[in-house]
């Protein structure tokens, strides 16, 4: 999980100091060195680190920490405040042109993830903002880049404009706008070729596209794993194109992602979105404040709640509650429920958002095998309608048929049935507890796929 390393380090530093009633100047010095190292290890640019540590030190030496009874807490608070400040407020809005189409240009180094992100962004615009986007294949240099965008477009069922590899990117972009107008598409996302910020010729091409299209947004796509050079890249692209925002990709890796801090600090441009996976719906709004919490290991509950709200159908949830109460919960409901949880994203990612989950022994680095979920699904789907409604029907013959149908051993079918029964029992007890009576504490049950 991104930033976990940084959080761990800072927490260790603070731990060394807790237990002490008061903090002296030597402690502060030691702490700022640790904070400095942690940030440097997280790939935050050294200049940014210098300023940051200076601020922390100044505030820490002040009365705030020295006289506090809980110096550790105070320091975390300061670091968090300063981090949040450095990363700026949340800004995931996308511009809307007065006269459609709104034009978005995607720029960045090679391999940052522009093409994938273009697809994700188009998907987001359609899903969340109800827009009709057009993807434009303006990367005529990298072999098969156009094929890649076309495949992405096909997967999403979003139109892709291309003119092959012989056309000039500037012309492609210009014609795409005309095409969008004709087809009444309201967003145009131009996927440009990756290029080095020091490549004058190719940077000139981008300046030309910008001059012709007058885009409403220019998004700089940056790999979250970028090291110290992030600053040079961001500064250079920004100077030449005046980008309007940054999209950070591959944040689902285990990089500490200090580049986010650096880019923000040197360009003062907002990081608007973060790429959180290889699937085309895994682009999220970048929340600086939540990220700062995550940096400090405080979890990311807000994102979790938001995901749940987004993906769980309220009506269905009500129905489910009713069923749980009346204990008429069936395997069909179970499938439904699984679908909903699955649509929230990879389970290990969800776990990572629970505060303290990384501190719990059993949960640290837990990897949930998504395949097992598939197995459970296969078993349930191999049941007949009656069996799903009434698991009581199950006998040895039926179980063998289900095992065959799902390609899983009979023992696994048995295990699932048993777990399902336990689950139902639990539900009954839980709903029985409602109404104020304090029931006995029950042992927890395991979801069949955990």
């Amino acid at each position: 999980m991104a930033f976990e390393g940084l959080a761990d380090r800072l927490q260790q530093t603070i731990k060394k100091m807790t237990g002490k009633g008061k903090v002296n100047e030597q402690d502060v010095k030691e702490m700022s060195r640790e904070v400095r190292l942690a940030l440097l290890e997280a790939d935050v640019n050294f200049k940014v680190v210098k300023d940051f540590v200076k601020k922390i030190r100044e505030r820490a030496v002040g009365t705030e920490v020295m006289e506090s009874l809980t110096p550790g807490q105070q320091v975390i608070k300061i670091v968090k405040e300063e981090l949040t400040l450095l990363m700026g407020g949340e800004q995931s809005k996308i511009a809307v042109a007065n006269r459609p189409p709104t034009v978005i240009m995607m720029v960045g180094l090679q391999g940052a993830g522009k093409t994938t992100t273009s697809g994700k962004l188009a998907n987001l615009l359609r899903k969340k903002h109800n827009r009709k986007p057009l993807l434009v294949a303006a990367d005529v240099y990298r072999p098969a880049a156009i094929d890649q965008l076309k495949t992405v477009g096909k997967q999403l069922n979003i139109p892709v404009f291309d003119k092959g590899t012989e056309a000039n990117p500037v012309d492609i972009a210009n014609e795409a706008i005309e095409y969008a107008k004709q087809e009444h598409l309201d967003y145009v996302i131009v996927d440009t070729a990756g290029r080095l910020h020091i490549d004058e010729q190719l940077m000139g091409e981008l300046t030309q596209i910008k001059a012709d299209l007058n885009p409403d947004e220019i998004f700089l796509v940056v790999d979250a794993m970028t090291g110290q050079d992030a600053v040079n890249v961001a500064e250079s692209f920004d100077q030449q194109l005046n980008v309007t925002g940054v999209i950070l990709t591959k944040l689902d890796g285990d990089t500490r992602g200090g580049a986010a801090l650096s880019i923000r600090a040197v360009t003062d441009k907002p990081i608007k979105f973060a790429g959180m996976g290889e699937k085309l719906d895994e682009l999220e709004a970048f929340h600086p404040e939540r990220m700062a919490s995550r940096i400090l290991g405080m979890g990311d509950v807000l994102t979790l709640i938001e995901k749940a709200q987004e993906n769980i159908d309220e009506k269905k949830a009500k129905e489910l509650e009713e069923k749980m109460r009346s204990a008429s919960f069936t395997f069909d409901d179970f499938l439904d429920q699984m679908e909903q949880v699955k649509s929230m994203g990879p389970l290990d990612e969800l776990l990572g958002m629970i505060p303290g989950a990384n501190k719990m022994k059993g949960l640290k680095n837990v990897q949930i095998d998504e395949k097992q979920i598939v197995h459970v699904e296969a078993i349930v789907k191999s049941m007949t309608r009656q069996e799903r409604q009434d698991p009581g029907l199950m006998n040895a013959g039926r179980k063998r048929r289900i095992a065959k149908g799902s390609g899983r051993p009979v023992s696994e079918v048995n295990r699932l049935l048993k777990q399902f029964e336990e689950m139902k029992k639990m539900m009954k007890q839980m709903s029985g507890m409602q109404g104020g009576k304090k029931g006995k504490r029950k042992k927890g049950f395991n979801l069949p796929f955990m």
Partner: protein
Amino acid sequence: MSFFKKLKEKFTGSAETEEVSDKYKAGLSKTRSSFSAKLNDLVARYRKVDEDFFEDLEEVLISADVGVNTVMELVAELELEAKRQNIKDAIDLKELISEKLVEIYTDGDYTAEVPLNLNSAGLSVILFVGVNGVGKTTSIGKLAYQLKQEGKKVLLVAGDTFRAGAIEQLGVWGERIGVEVIKQSEGSDPAAVMYDGIQAARSRGADVLLCDTAGRLQNKVNLMNELSKVKRVIEREIPGAPHDVLLVLDATTGQNALVQAKTFSETTDVTGIVLTKLDGTAKGGIVLAIRKELNIPVKYVGLGEQMTDLEKFDPNAFVYGLFADMVTEQQMD
């Protein structure tokens, strides 16, 4: 003889080495000017060697993405050395700094070039691994070209069945160079594609089989398992294969590159590194840390987008490129 003189002598020996080092100099010009300029500036600013000097030195090295641990150790060593030799003037430390850096890289052996591990008696299989977007497919294209120029029969396997357009991308490279690409459709099992590739390489009597794989972040356990399965299939089909497992690293990557090297090594026993995109402003200093902590050598560097822009990694040329300004300076002294 001074350290710089030794380096200089080595590189003015023959026309061939000069050509190579010129390419490095061009490719690394950004790296070099910023790095040695910074070092010069540092030395000029601090006449005396003190605590602040070492802290600034740390930053110069860190700015090149040399791993934090490596830098801390190096600086501690230098501090000790400075005390021992009673060095008080910053300028006297300059050469020592450079020498120490090269030492890490080459482990004292100034000719430590590590060539590709090819099987002279038959088919050689080279597996390419790495995270997303580092340049695996491009590096394969470039290496295929180079090997073909050397007269080898090369075959490519499109093992990235996941990313949209990846198979087509390798296909374009195959056409450009004129080598055959073994492929299946998108979404098929990469291990099965590898199997096909090996069978094809055998029946066509190929010398080298270059295997592309999908980019994957090293913390995705399931994807890493898939990769080790790919490797197992290769091992099972040809004893002793893969002869090289090359981890492709983006020079712009920071500290995470070390984690990448560690994790990919655990899964696939990486035998060498291809350092790509070194023609940018990034320094790729992390390879120092990787060499030091994991002892994985860099075998190739990518210095541009053309077919010919892949160079065998020559630590000397790299270092020469990095310190060329200082070498010239010394001569004028």
